[in-house]
């Protein structure tokens, strides 16, 4: 897939304006979580700690990019009546692959993520990108679109996991960052951050900050 990317780059001096928009738009203006409000379930479920969240972000990225690429290659041969079934087949193959790889190489994290890796198949972002982009665009732009959206997804869930692990357990990536002296002064970890409801509040705050900074998102 990197070959395709470099081809795009070689053809033009830089990413063309359109291609750059594919990558940059989902980071902020059209973020899958905070603007399109997709993929919220996994953002609530896997973000108690930073490490599993990173693995989740990478897994989703692999699935979104590869499925976008494959579906885009096949797009002209898929009968539109059964396109959802075809998409699901491709996505489920990829998800099972990712799951098996995680089980083989990072078993602990895989156990922590449990069903949520398998549930990537139901992540609305995956199907959303296939339907909205890959079915109607060439493989090159589809890969860029996959990267853009999965990075947009990744930075939000990493930000949520950062807040939740920091305030919920006083740690980052498993290392204690809030010094013992603070605990001795009476500080206590916030249990609300450990339950999924806490993630909703963190996402709400992120959306709040994003909308007050980005005037384009203001609703009438």
């Amino acid at each position, binding site marked *: 897939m990197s070959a395709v990317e470099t081809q795009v780059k070689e053809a033009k001096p830089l990413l063309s304006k359109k291609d750059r928009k594919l990558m940059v738009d989902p980071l902020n203006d059209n973020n899958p979580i905070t603007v399109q409000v997709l993929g919220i379930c996994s953002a609530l479920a896997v973000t108690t700690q930073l490490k599993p969240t990173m693995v989740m972000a990478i897994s989703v990225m692999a699935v979104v990019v590869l499925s976008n690429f494959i579906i885009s290659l096949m797009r002209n041969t898929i009968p539109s009546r059964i396109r959802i079934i075809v998409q699901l087949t491709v996505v489920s193959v990829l998800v099972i692959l990712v799951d098996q790889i995680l089980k083989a190489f990072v078993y602990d994290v895989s156990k922590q993520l449990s069903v949520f890796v398998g549930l990537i198949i139901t992540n609305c972002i995956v199907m959303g990108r296939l339907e909205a982009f890959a079915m109607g665009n060439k493989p090159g732009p589809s890969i860029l679109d996959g990267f853009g959206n999965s990075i947009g997804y990744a930075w939000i869930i990493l930000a949520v996991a950062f807040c939740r692990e920091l305030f919920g357990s006083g740690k980052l990536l498993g290392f204690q960052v809030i010094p013992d002296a603070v605990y001795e002064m*009476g*500080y*206590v970890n*916030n*249990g*609300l*951050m450990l339950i999924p*409801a806490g993630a909703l509040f963190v996402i*709400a705050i992120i959306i*709040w900050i994003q909308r007050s900074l980005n005037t384009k998102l203001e609703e009438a």
Partner: protein
Amino acid sequence: MKFLKDKVYELRPLFNKGGKYEKFHTVFDGFATFLFTPDHVTHDGTHIKAGIDLKRTMFFVILAMVPALLFGMYNVGHQHFISNGEFLGYGEGFLDKLIYGSIKVLPIVVVSYGVGLGIEFFIASSKGHAINEGFLVSGMLIPLILPPSIPLWMVAVATAFAVVFAKEVFGGTGMNILNVALTARVFLFFAYPTFMSGDTVWIAEKADAYSGATALANSIAGTPGFSTSDMIMGFIPGSIGETSKIAILIGAAFLILTGIGSWKIMTSVMLGAGIMGLIFNAVGANEFMQVPFYYHFIMGGLLFGAVFMATDPVTAAQTEVGKWWYGLLIGMMAVMIRVFNPAYPEGIMLAILFGNVMAPLIDYFVVQSNIKRRLARA
């Protein structure tokens, strides 16, 4: 009074548009209207004016809470001393108990008001709104529903959370869906459960050997563990303002007489709790179910919640028929949560929040049924 009033009006031009302290206009306006009924006159259109404005209404509610607060302060001291085996009689060491209690309770009140009003003032002046007085009541309710041993920084965090997330994001006073004070409590309950439940938090600086379990916690074993008169008078461990049923009833009478609190909601919450208690008595599958239903009225915060929080005019049902259903729902839910889920002994907190969420739906059905009935008659 006349002198103060003259002084305030003399200062006013400084704060008006173009004045020296224009930026602080909202703060000044907030204080001036708190002290005196505003002299603004409406200029056009027809207006219906009530005899008392929002600030006076809020102040009446605070007056109604004063008995519960005073008794709460005394009881905090009383519980502390009897846990250490001193001043066992109700009136013994009266001053010691009162002073000890005020040292514990007043800082919580100050922190709650300081943080809450600070945020309100900041948001009002940054948006150029008039300062609302909604927090006057919430700021007093928050200390009354917390355990006396709560760390002050937690009060500050919870108050800030409640004011921002329960109120300001919805548009400020009068627009909130959930009761602000209960949001603060529910935040603490889920964020710092060890400081909000269990046997150790309800008595300030308790001696280790003394059991600090509340009547509700004891009831899991089938008996409240306190004499009925103690529970009615309020000489039991619990949140600061909720223990004395007498003090709360005085407040309730005051609210009903001044027409501020809805007697329908208070009655129907009690009714709902009673019905649910009777049903559980009839089933009687475990010890808690067998606790006589009338104990539910005098245990825990049911009465306090029914009088001061379920009646919150903003978050309660608005229609008169709806108020009955709303209260019944809260009362039944409260007893159900108490009995079915010992992990959440204080069911009234979650029940009222649930009722708040359901209130618009209840109103909708009441209005719809009115429309249907009148259409059928036409």
